């Protein structure tokens, strides 16, 4: 491995260690909640970006997150499955549903794809409102069971009774890191190269033999699976699911996090989600300013850094090098 790879990997290792040690240093239960929720948001934002790698922006992504949550909750509540069975089944079920939602959208592109995916997502979301049994109607689903206690021989049982317990934090952190790893590997694989080609030119892609629809569908389904994972974790973390949470509000937020962070780079949505998450916390005393500040950050980013915050180091680097060279001259 060459030097720059060493730096990258050791940096990542350091960050991971810090993330795992955070609960030791942060005793404040409120911040534990905030961070845990942020890990869930990162899963959703990154999987949103995964769809963007094909060039499309989907507004059905967040409803599918909700579908994962509802499916997982209902599998535990109505069928008595354990969390460790309900969650993968929910992910699978949502992946299948996403085929129904995205299949008609394959004919569309750009703004039409955006609105068509939202329209079908909305039909699905309204099912949760209309069918009080089993989805709980507009009041939603409450008393969602928490994940089952984990019994590892020789160690004390890991339970999920309290939200701020480190158990939730670690559970969701592990899932987030695994999700990021898988999505990263996918992007580096042949599938990622095909997605990049499709994004550049669907026409040319088909003229080198790529079945564009098939690969788009594969990517959309994978992205939806991760969204469902995020939704399931969300459901069993907050123990309440309400349909209005997955309306266009959250969808716009996810879009903003990804775009401001930078959709061109894998780490972009992570940066965006973290920055906006922290900003919201600092604005707790002034809740009415939140949309305003968000809007300003979005506008400023679109105007000055259209490739997102992640491109900041790239932009600063040549300028910084010049400054350092000047200083050395002296």
């Amino acid at each position, binding site marked *: 491995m060459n030097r720059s790879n060493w730096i990258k990997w050791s940096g990542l290792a350091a960050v991971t260690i810090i993330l795992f040690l955070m609960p030791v240093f942060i005793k404040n239960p409120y911040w534990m909640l905030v961070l845990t929720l942020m890990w869930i948001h990162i899963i959703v934002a990154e999987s949103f970006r995964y769809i963007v790698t094909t060039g499309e922006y989907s507004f059905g992504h967040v409803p599918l997150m909700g579908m994962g949550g509802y499916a997982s909750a209902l599998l535990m509540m109505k069928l008595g499955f354990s969390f460790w069975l309900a969650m993968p089944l929910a992910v699978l079920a949502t992946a299948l549903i996403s085929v129904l939602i995205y299949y008609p959208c394959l004919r569309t592109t750009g703004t039409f794809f955006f609105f068509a995916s939202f329209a079908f997502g909305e039909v699905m979301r309204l099912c949760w409102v209309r069918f009080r049994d089993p989805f709980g109607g507009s009041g939603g689903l409450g008393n969602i069971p928490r994940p089952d206690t984990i019994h590892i021989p020789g160690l004390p049982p890991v339970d999920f009774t309290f939200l701020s317990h480190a158990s939730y934090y670690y559970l969701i952190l592990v899932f987030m890191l695994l999700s990021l790893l898988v999505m990263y590997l996918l992007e580096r694989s042949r599938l990622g190269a095909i997605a990049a080609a499709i994004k550049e030119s669907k026409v040319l892609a088909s*003229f080198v033999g790529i079945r564009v629809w098939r690969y788009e569908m594969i990517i959309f389904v994978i992205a939806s699976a991760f969204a469902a994972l995020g939704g399931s974790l969300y459901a069993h973390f907050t123990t309440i699911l309400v349909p209005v949470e997955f309306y266009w509000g959250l969808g716009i937020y996810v879009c903003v996090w990804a775009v401001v962070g930078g959709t061109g780079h894998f780490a972009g949505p992570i940066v965006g989600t973290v920055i906006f998450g922290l900003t919201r916390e600092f604005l707790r005393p002034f809740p009415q300013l939140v949309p305003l500040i968000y809007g300003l950050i979005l506008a400023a980013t679109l105007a000055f850094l259209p490739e997102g915050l992640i491109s900041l180091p790239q932009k600063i680097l040549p300028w910084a090098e010049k400054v350092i060279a000047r200083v050395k001259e002296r």
Partner: protein
Amino acid sequence: MNESLLEVRNITKRFGGLTAVSQLSFDIYQGEILGLIGPNGAGKTTLFNVITGFYPPTEGKVLYKGENVTGLKPHELVQKGIARSFQLTALFDSLSVFQNAAMSRHLHTEVSFWGSLFHTLGNREKETAAEAKTMELLKLTGLDNQRDVLAKNLSHGYQKTLNFTIAIGTDPELLMLDEPLCALNPERIAAIQDLIFTVRDKGVTILVIEHNMKALFPVCDRIMVLDAGMKIAEGTPKEIGGNPEVIRAYLGGAIDVSDRR
């Protein structure tokens, strides 16, 4: 006489009230280079689009190696061995020259999805082999020393060459070139002419649309002339050059074909 690789029978394409191509029939024979000329709006690119599956014909059929391929989608036709280049350069703009060429090898690379996902050992060998084949392709068309340049940053002449490279990267049996020589300087034109011969020598049959007749005629075995969607002449370059119909259509003077290699 070689057998027909592509048979076009009574192809008609109408767009609303406009008939772009009308009752067009011709054959392309194995191993030949067939040139397609005609005034602007004669229906040449429309014909290409119909044959390569961009849109289906209103009437008529296309037979490839005896098989009816009318109305098949582009990716299906590429699988069968029909590739094309584009008049207005169609490239993967933000990808490098190497990545563009690698993409064109999509149907022929041995690298599997799961292998590439986990970077297994066996896969690494395949990746190296695929990379070598891509570099071979770039060397053939003279782009190997620009492999990491982004496609959008290439000069126009090299962009057309990359366009050409992507088309032959798919290992076609029938290669369809849409104005590969237009707006190029003489050095680039000679390079592309050489490439066309090299590719033909590898056994590929070629159909070329071109306006630059001085550059086209030395390269072709036969020429077909379209005007207003219909075939008005077919023959060797010499015959076409002296054909009064064709001259009347738009040449305005006989073409000197003594350059024939």
